[in-house]
């Protein structure tokens, strides 16, 4: 599989010099295609202080096909589905937007940026997006509460 070399390279780069607030490891040492990412809630966002588990799955056709990103931790966010899957919708991960030259590091940083600034116009959870736009305070409250409930480990 030609992609393994690239994935291994990206992984080692990410492990050696992780981007801010992002820690990367393999979910299963034997499988390069499933990554477990620990993402800290960005400062200033309602997710601050939380540590979110993000599952990153790479297709075997990577880098020609985009990876998929899902939240393993429940999160109250307009762009993350509010179910067990926690799928995240990233513009750059859509098949027609994806470029093989995009790197996983960029994907993860983009995902974290999305925690900071949700994109309600490109939302999966319409209700949360509505709230984010119209009742920002309430949204902040719930997001903080959820973060405390699910993403803060004692």
């Amino acid at each position, binding site marked *: 599989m030609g992609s393994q*070399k*690239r994935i291994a390279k990206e992984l080692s780069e990410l492990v050696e010099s992780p981007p801010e607030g992002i820690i990367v490891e393999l979910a299963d040492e034997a499988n390069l295609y499933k990554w477990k990412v620990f993402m800290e809630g960005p400062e200033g966002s309602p997710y601050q202080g939380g540590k979110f588990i993000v599952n990153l799955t790479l297709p075997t056709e990577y880098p020609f096909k985009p990876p998929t990103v899902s939240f393993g931790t429940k999160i109250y966010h307009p762009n993350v589905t509010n179910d067990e899957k926690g799928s995240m919708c990233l513009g750059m991960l*859509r098949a*027609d937007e994806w*470029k093989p*030259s995009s*790197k996983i590091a960029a994907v993860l940083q983009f995902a974290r940026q999305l925690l900071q600034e949700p994109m309600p116009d490109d939302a999966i959870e319409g209700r949360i997006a509505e709230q984010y736009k119209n009742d920002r305070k309430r949204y902040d409250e719930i997001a903080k509460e959820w973060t405390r409930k699910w993403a803060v480990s004692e």
Partner: protein
Amino acid sequence: MSASTATASASLSDCPRPGRLRRFSQLRAYTQNLSHSSPGHRSRNSLSSRVPWLSPSSSGPESPTQQVGNSTTPGPESDQPALSRYTSAPTASSHGLGVDTQTSSAESSRSTPPNEPVQPSPNVMARLRSASAVQGRPPPTDAPDSTGAIPADAAQVTTVTSKKATIRFFPYQDTFQSSRPSLPFVPIARTLPSESSVIRVGRYSERDGIPIPNPTEPSDAPVGFKSKVVSRKHCEFIYSNGQWHIKDVGSSSGTFLNHMRLSQPNMVSRLYSIKDGDIVQLGIDFRGGEEMIFRCVRIRIECNRSWQQQPNEFNKNTESLIKNLGKGDGADYSGCRECSICLGSVLRPYQCLFMAACAHVWHYKCISRLLHSPDYPMFQCPNCRAFTDLSAEVDDTNDVVENDEGKAPTEATPTNDAAESASGTQPAVTAQATTNGAEEQQPTPLEPHTEEPDFVTDVENLHLQDDNDEASGSGIDMEDGRSSDSQAPSTSHDDLARSATISIPGFQPTQPLNVPAARQPHLRADTPGRSETSDDNPLTPRNDSGPLAFDGRAGMR
């Protein structure tokens, strides 16, 4: 030995300017000299560089000979009427004989009228002879010059203005919002002949004659699609103030710009500006689009990409990196980029690479998936999303010359010498080939360092021969035949000859022409009979390595 080759070698040998990095441009410079006899005016921006295209054809085969004696008078053609321009062209051509190249090019650029556009945008897409600016040139003056003798190519050149608006239409498949494919069509390119022209888009009609999807000259020929959902007059593309616009001219089923309908049915819309990458849809699938004739047309617009086809920081860097390939361990890979597919380093020796027209480079192995996709021959650069038609004719015009340095470095000299010996003294070459054969026991280090000039000479010779043909017809043809004859004997030694050439840099000055000679047969070494080719076999291919050589060149524009 033909007069023209002799002339060229004479003038080039006097050329003072060495320059490793300028080989490509030098080669183009060289060929231009040769066939168009105006070395002083190669500057890509200067009006005068157009003139040379005319002179060889009109002055006939004897013109090169005249040039030898001429002393250098850099021709200030641009201000002069066509006739005097014509006469001054040969004069100017004695480049190198006593006058510094730079002086002449400087002069020529000075003589360029101030209203001359400085940045011509070569319309690579339209495969135009995107030569230097012609705008200062009144078209009528071309006519007397071009009567009869001018090859089609040259005639074409005269009509092309480089500062033209070009737009390309590519089929676009919206695989995510629509399960049905849209109407397939070949990519269409248009370059406006004048700013006021309009590209009309409508239903294809036999009455309009056979449409040419990609005319080689500026054209505002209407664009037709064979679909019933496209109205006869559907929409128009208009270029004004440096910006492309689209307008629905009263189509019945609508024109959509990025999914937005421009106007009500049968209503004319206002102008909407479009940009590179926009999607334009004509009509809506009718009857489910089951039949091809009922499918809508989705067009991906490509415009304003001309900056990518001119020398810029990026592709110059790529060029220099490619030159690095030949330097072995001493090469400087500091500016080396990575292959965006495997994230490994590209541009190490002994890797097969693919370079797109946008000068992005990948390992062939990595990019091949995208090359041999269902969309073939369309290729979209995964880095910059530029579309390329991989099956398009190779544009081997040499008009765009980097003029940041003096031209025709010394390396040209050996080539010419060799050219002389090769074409003139056929036995000598054969002997040399044999010598190469004798060299065979040598271990072949295959140093890339020596391979690079090898490649370069290769390219140079290709151009040389091409232009010879073009310039002075049959005389050169004969010579061609002879030189190919002389190449033939080396076939049997091809491997050895090649390795020998590579391993002995010392041979370079005396025999660069042999390199390609040995190389061409090398490519087809397995062809039986080739190896026995005797001296009178005129069939040795002349341009075997052509596409390889040109590919790279085209990309670096």
